[in-house]
């Protein structure tokens, strides 16, 4: 075999701390290497042409490129090798940038490690065999998980693009967090007035199937052909006949039920429709509050319902949706701010979250749009806003900036003045973060036109005294301690990934961080993709962001799905498992451990054997480590290829020793 080795300078990225000329020189003496050369930018047009020319002139059988991570340019160089007439899998990449030059400054040690990595890549390539893709057809339906503003936008864009859309929403209505907001910054326009029509569009769009009160239970399959098991949670109301008339809500005797839509500052009835603009506008029963479920007696809603829609015996229903792509738009939840003992850890009724305050401001909220403090229902005159509660605070494990709190706090300060003209607002802040069109101007307005008093500093303590909440903090600009006697304290609580997002990520086989946010494919260049083909992200599920950004990301994810579906067939990755029939004993352990259901039982001359369904196999390799006799091998990562790499590495160790 004739192997060519191309060592990239990457400008000074690699050459700065690795002697690339020496690496290329060392490669010349490696087994099977017929050609080795350093190159300034291997990925550039002349760099790639150099590889192609060398392959053609020297009659090379394969190429090793020592440069950056294969995540960056693996596919680039595979195409290069293919353009030179070789099979794209007759190529190996040695990552001497992320794994070498960027992590160490010792040029001698770096060069030695780079040579080792090249030696391993050469040893592996010597074992490589040409592999060929298969084509498979795709199911041009898309599932969107989460019916907040990002999910709604993605659903509408996909549906307008002609795709069949399945929208799955956990709660009984779409709208998400935005539906809870009173007004939106920086224009102070009514949130439900701008979101409401979009929600109606979802309900009326012929291409959208909406499953509310539903959750994703299991995800099977692969890009183009996912099977998603959706659990439609029992609402105890037949939604096919419920008209949303609200007669049941009027008569329900259990009026003190928890109201999650109103962030628990108000109460609702056990059978309820969360808010007037809910989509679908259907009633559902909260089992924990319903007298019928608790005592067996009552049943008033069933009596008053004009369409006889109440069904106390309703069970969860499982349905399977077949889709080709999935957009995860599961949004955020507020972090649990009760870790802040200095703000009362939830003991004081007049210390509330910004989202609770938002419900208070809303005309359809529990107070009818009047600001009343929870303890005595009096109108507060002095309101203190504390920012960065659970943001930029390592002490509670939240080092990141939620980003939108500065803006909504300014908005809430403005709205407070509108609601109670003789009120005074104080805002304790760390920094004002208002990058965005008309954003900084907006915070300025809160201060200059609406007279909100901004105090740069943290609050050390909040405690009740004589019917007031005493807020003690520091004004770092004045260098003085400050104390404010407040009637109401509003905490700008930071965001984290929505509850259950980690579990969903495991089902979708995508990465997530310790705050429950899903990891994008690349922080800059793949902001809506994930590392699982066919799964995309939109909105706060990927990280905290405001409404315009969420909407933009919803559209971006839709565009990605539409471009994926613009083809009728996809090419399968040939790096899949393959069964050696004479070794296989038919124990089917591989099938048990396969997370994709890619292995089926077959019979060869009366004996059971395993068989890989190539288009389903994702090449994860779990089967290969399960199979004790090595009968199932992952193509391009066979035991022998891995062993060749290990032996190459160890042989250099022995030489040095």
């Amino acid at each position, binding site marked *: 075999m004739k192997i060519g080795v191309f060592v990239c300078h990457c400008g000074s990225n690699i050459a700065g701390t690795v002697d690339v000329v020496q690496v290329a020189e060392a490669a010349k003496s490696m087994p099977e290497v017929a050609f080795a050369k350093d190159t300034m930018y291997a990925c550039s047009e002349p760099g790639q042409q150099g590889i192609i020319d060398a392959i053609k002139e020297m009659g090379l059988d394969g190429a090793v490129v020592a440069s950056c991570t294969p995540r960056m340019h693996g596919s680039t160089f595979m195409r290069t090798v293919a353009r030179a007439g070789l099979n794209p899998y007759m190529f190996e990449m040695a990552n001497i940038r992320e794994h070498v030059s960027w992590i160490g400054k010792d040029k001698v040690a770096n060069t030695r490690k780079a040579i080792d990595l090249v030696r391993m890549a050469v040893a592996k390539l010597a074992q490589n065999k040409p592999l060929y893709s298969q084509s498979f057809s795709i199911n041009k339906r898309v599932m969107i998980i989460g019916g907040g503003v990002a999910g709604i936008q993605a659903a509408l864009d996909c549906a307008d693009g002609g795709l069949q859309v399945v929208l799955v929403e956990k709660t009984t209505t779409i709208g998400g967090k935005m539906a809870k907001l009173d007004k939106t910054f920086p224009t102070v326009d009514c949130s439900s007035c701008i979101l409401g029509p979009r929600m109606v569009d979802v309900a009326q769009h012929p291409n959208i199937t909406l499953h509310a009160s539903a959750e994703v239970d299991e995800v099977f399959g692969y890009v183009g052909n996912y099977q998603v098991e959706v659990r439609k949670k029992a609402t105890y109301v037949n939604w096919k006949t419920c008209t949303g008339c609200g007669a049941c809500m009027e008569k329900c005797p259990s009026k003190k039920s928890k109201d999650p839509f109103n962030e628990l500052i108000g109460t609702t009835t056990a059978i309820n429709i969360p808010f007037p603009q809910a989509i679908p506008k259907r009633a559902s029963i909260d089992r924990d509050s319903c007298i019928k479920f608790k005592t067996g007696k009552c049943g008033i809603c069933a009596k008053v319902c004009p369409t006889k829609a109440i069904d106390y015996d309703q069970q969860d229903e499982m349905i399977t949706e077949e889709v080709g792509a999935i957009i995860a738009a599961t949004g955020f939840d507020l972090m649990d701010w009760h870790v802040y003992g200095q703000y009362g850890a939830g003991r004081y009724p007049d210390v509330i979250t910004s989202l609770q305050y938002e419900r208070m401001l809303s005309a359809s909220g529990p107070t009818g749009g009047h600001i009343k403090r929870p303890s005595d229902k009096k109108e507060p005159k002095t309101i203190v806003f504390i920012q960065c509660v659970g943001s930029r605070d390592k002490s509670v494990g939240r080092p990141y900036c939620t980003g939108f709190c500065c803006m909504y706090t300014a908005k809430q300060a403005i709205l407070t003045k509108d609601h109670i003209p003789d009120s005074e607002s104080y805002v304790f802040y760390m920094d004002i973060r208002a990058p965005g069109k008309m954003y900084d101007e907006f915070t300025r307005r809160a201060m200059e036109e609406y007279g909100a008093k901004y105090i740069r500093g943290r609050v050390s303590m909040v405690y009740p005294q004589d019917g007031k909440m005493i807020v003690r903090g520091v004004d770092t600009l004045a260098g003085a301690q400050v104390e404010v006697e407040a009637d109401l304290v509003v905490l700008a609580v930071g965001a984290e990934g929505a509850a259950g997002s*980690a*579990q969903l990520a*495991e089902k979708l086989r995508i990465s997530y961080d310790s705050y429950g946010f899903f990891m994008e494919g690349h922080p800059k260049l793949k902001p809506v993709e994930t590392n699982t083909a066919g799964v995309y992200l939109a909105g706060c599920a990927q990280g905290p962001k405001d409404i315009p950004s969420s909407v933009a990301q919803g559209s971006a994810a839709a565009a990605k799905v539409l471009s994926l579906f613009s083809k009728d067939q996809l090419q399968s990755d040939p790096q899949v498992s393959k069964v050696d029939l*004479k*070794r296989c*004993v*038919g*124990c*089917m*352990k591989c099938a*048990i*451990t396969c*997370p994709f259901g890619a292995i089926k039982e077959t019979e060869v001359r*009366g*004996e*059971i054997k395993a068989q890989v369904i190539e288009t389903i196999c994702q090449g994860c390799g*779990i089967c290969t480590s*399960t199979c*004790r*006799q*090595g*009968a199932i*091998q992952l193509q391009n990562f*066979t*035991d*022998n290829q891995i*062993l060749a790499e290990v032996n190459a590495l160890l042989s250099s160790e022995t030489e040095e020793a």
Partner: protein
Amino acid sequence: MSLQDELKAQIVKRLPELDVVIGWGQGYDSLHRTPLFITSEADVDKLVFDPLCVHNLSTYLTRYGSAKRIGVVVKGCDSRSVVELLQEKLIHRDKVMVFGLPCEGVADLGKVKRALAAKDLDMGRVRAASFADGDLVVTVSGQEIRLPMAEVQADKCGRCRYHNAVIHDEFAGQPITEAAPDTYADVAAFEEQTLEERMEFWREQMERCVRCYACRNACPLCVCRDYCIGQSREPNWVSQRDGLEEKFFFQMIHATHLAGRCTECGECERACPVDIPLLLLKRKLGKEILELFDYRAGTDPDAKPPLLNFKVQEDTINERGW
């Protein structure tokens, strides 16, 4: 009717449905039993069952292909291997007939040999062996020696939880009611040593290994046979070099391939010609599996073994804090 006669009657009754029944017969001397392959009623007379029937006959079940119907005689410990093979679909329930037995414990011929040697007697000269009142009675060099079974019984029998076959189509004799708890006290005692001491112990033991593969061949769950990763050239994980590393590596592969599957029948250790305490290695993994997953292999044919079961969040290993 004695247990042995009851077993013979059961085999005679069932033999017409079967291609072969595997039991124990008389070996080359009075202390040894050997596997017996019964294909006709005449063979049934050669069947023996006593505490010298040490072999785990389920080892042979995977060697017939799936076409033949095979009967197998099993003690409690052996029956767990059958369960494990069924669970792993290496044999099929409708092709296997299990003749289950109760067992109070088998003899360890190594212990017998040492006990006789202590009396200046040679096990090779034993001319007759029988059992009476819990003693092994042997006639050797003209003397009759009584060896209490408690002294020459295999270690595994002293901590046995499963005296009766856990799976069977026929069961001869009366089930034994008591069962030892097996607390893995032996492994725990070994773990008391420092890492260096344990390494030194295994280094000494493994030096003796001749890679004869007797341990592997005796193991009922080693089903790879000609494609054993320990001697395969493609992939070539372990070279044929005669070094401590290779011996150790082979034994570690053997042990880890049995993690969560090994029923601790001890055939590997019994078969070892150089007395490497291989069962200790297997029991260490057995203990880990029990502690991590609360699972004992070979007790339930329908169980899903923990290492073949993908759970995002294990019940006992809280990685995600869910």
